[in-house]
């Protein structure tokens, strides 16, 4: 894949910058399952730029288009969210096999276990958790209307929690197997439906360990904005990186395996965010159930022949992990 896109990138950048550009050192990042992230150097005259092309292959399901993703990243950057600067966006044509955008290459680790090793070596777990909280608060301070291209909206009607619950129920009803643990989770969520947030905000929706670039100095960038919602409950964003699934065996460090919740929330509040513990817990239960059903959905893709990958086949056998995590979260008092 990397070498094939070199002529398209060279052609595009030469046109965009008005001078001959040569492309070298291409490699594919392991981050991102559905999209290709190609790291490369672009040399124009005496200057070499270290860049990343994020390509959405034709035929892939589009959640937010590359133009919407680039637009929200632009605004987020202005508000001080850690995000790689987007240089160029191309939504049409067949230069590299699909729409793409080109952003600054930010050095650091993205693979969760490597991230956690680095965090451990440098002793920066609390720093990363606090910085993630700060970035989320800055994102949540943005008026959605400031994003130049419309972001995706909720699929179901009603306030964020009501819509999320309806979405979960619909997803569960598509499954060929019924799971009592899922039903117990749904019932728990129904009984404890929270009040809507005072103010709905943009929701990144996937700021977990694995979508972050971390260096020796801490959090350098939040990646993967393709699922960003135009508006929702900001506690959804805070709860998601706290799922046990994203701690990669550092079970006692709730936030991404980096640190406990305190520095994360301290960072969020210091940067102007309003934390609500009750809604946080509700969204943590919702996220755990949603990811359990999501893994089942991946396996349905395999069983129906749409995604003939053994990795997707294996997802179904991860469902009990999430069911366990869910049951621990909804323990009867």
């Amino acid at each position, binding site marked *: 894949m990397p070498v094939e896109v070199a002529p398209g990138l060279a052609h595009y950048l030469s046109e965009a910058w008005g001078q001959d550009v040569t492309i070298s050192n291409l490699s594919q990042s392991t981050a991102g399952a559905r999209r290709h992230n190609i790291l490369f150097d672009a040399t124009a005259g005496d200057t070499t730029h270290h860049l990343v092309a994020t390509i959405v292959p034709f035929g892939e399901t589009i959640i937010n288009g590359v133009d919407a993703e680039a637009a929200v990243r632009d605004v987020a950057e202005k508000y001080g969210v850690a995000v790689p600067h987007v240089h160029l966006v191309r939504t049409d044509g067949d230069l590299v096999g699909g729409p793409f955008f080109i952003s600054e290459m930010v050095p650091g680790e993205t693979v969760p276990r490597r991230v956690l090793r680095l965090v451990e070596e440098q002793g920066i777990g609390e720093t990363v958790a606090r910085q993630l909280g700060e970035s989320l608060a800055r994102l949540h301070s943005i008026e959605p209307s400031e994003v130049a291209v419309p972001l995706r909206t909720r699929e179901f009607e009603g306030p964020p929690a009501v819509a999320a619950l309806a979405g979960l129920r619909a997803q569960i009803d598509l499954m060929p197997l019924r799971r*009592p643990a899922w039903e117990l989770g749904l019932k728990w969520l129904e009984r404890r439906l929270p009040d809507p947030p005072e103010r709905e905000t943009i929701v990144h929706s996937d700021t977990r360990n694995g979508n972050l670039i971390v260096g020796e100095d801490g959090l350098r960038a939040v990646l993967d904005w393709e699922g960003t919602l135009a508006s929702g409950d900001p506690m959804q964003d805070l709860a998601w990186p706290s799922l046990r699934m994203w701690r990669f065996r550092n079970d006692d460090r709730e936030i991404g395996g980096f640190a406990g919740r305190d520095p994360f929330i301290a960072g969020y509040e210091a940067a102007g965010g309003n934390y609500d513990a009750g809604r946080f817990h509700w969204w943590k239960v919702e996220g755990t159930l949603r990811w359990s059903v999501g893994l089942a959905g991946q396996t349905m893709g395999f069983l129906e022949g749409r995604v003939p990958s053994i990795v997707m086949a294996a997802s179904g056998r991860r469902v009990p992990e999430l069911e366990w995590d869910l049951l621990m979260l909804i323990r009867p008092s």
Partner: protein
Amino acid sequence: MQFVPEAADLLAAIGKLLDEKVLNVVPPDLQHQVRVAAHLSTLLEREARLGPAGAARERELLTGLLGEEVDNPNDALAARLRDGDDEAFEAAAWPALVEIARMDLAIAKPGHDRYEGE
């Protein structure tokens, strides 16, 4: 009746081969898939050994909870939880589902249930 080795022993041998011999010699873009295949082989080995006893205990637990023998107690419990409005029944379902999850995890991810926090 098949001759030996039994399914569990064959699956263990396949898993060991994939993990110890094949993984190191396949191209980098196949390594993750081979690692997953090795993992699934050892998972199926555990299923072959532990699955039958776990299924029997699951049926016993669910039947006890439902108070009657039914063809598919899993579906019946899911339906009762979905349609019902009985917090005491939901609280009674929790420990049974925890025990079932522990048995599922003994096959799918041994050790995951050692952590009982949030």
